């Protein structure tokens, strides 16, 4: 029985490693990295003998809307996924998809993804797991 337990534990460890590797491809950042933001260091304003710097609430900087493209290659025409086949004039107006999981191209096939975002200088984590079935 002990031998069986040992074998089971080894197999479960291998299985767990494969499972972790599989999940890694289904993660997504809920926002892009802000290139102009100042880096925050953990505890940087808590030094001895210094006055803590007050800081306000932090908000994510998600994209309001982002598009996907097929570049023009070999003399062809480029394509964009939304507002296809071409952008409309500004006076026409259009609708943004501000909640990325609702974008229509996500509904085309069965899959799952986890969006995550760190906040409060890395102390908090917001995670949203979504399955499209």
């Amino acid at each position, binding site marked *: 029985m002990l031998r069986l337990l040992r074998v089971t534990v080894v197999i479960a460890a291998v299985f767990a490693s494969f499972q972790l590797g599989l999940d890694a491809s289904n993660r997504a950042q809920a926002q892009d990295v802000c290139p102009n933001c100042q880096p925050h260091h953990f505890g940087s304003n808590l030094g001895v003998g210094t006055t803590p710097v007050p800081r306000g609430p932090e908000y994510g900087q998600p994209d309001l809307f982002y598009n996907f493209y097929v570049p023009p290659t070999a003399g062809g*025409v480029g394509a964009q996924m939304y507002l296809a086949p071409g952008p409309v004039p500004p006076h026409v107006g259009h609708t943004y998809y501000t909640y990325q999981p609702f974008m229509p191209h996500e509904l085309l096939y069965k899959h799952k993804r986890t969006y995550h975002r760190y906040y409060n200088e890395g102390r908090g984590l917001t995670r949203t797991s979504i399955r499209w079935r």
Partner: protein
Amino acid sequence: MNKAGFLVLAVTLASFFASLEAVQAEEHMRRADRWALRHARGQSWNAPYYHTATGMPISLVVPPTAHMQTRWGWGVAQNTMTPIYHQYRRTYPGEISGGENLNPTPYWPSHTDQFGVFYNRGPYGPGF
């Protein structure tokens, strides 16, 4: 080996092989995507025909899991079945332009390409 032990071992092995199969399928998909991307760099997603309603070729978005397309034409041995190489990606390629040398749909179409609608696979995710 008692029944409970055998059951635990069987479930563990079944889970392992199921996971292995999923990982292999994922690896195969990545390899196929790399090949498709390489082919897509060397050819256009559209034939030189525009759609009658828009004046531009129309990209018909299909799931990223779609692989093959069939194109029909008049005549013997004119039907082809080819991979859908092109896929939408996040990278902004610059201003979307072109379309100067496109032809209208002929009065008597002889190929499905002449209708100006072409398949492109959707992206896998926001960071793709």
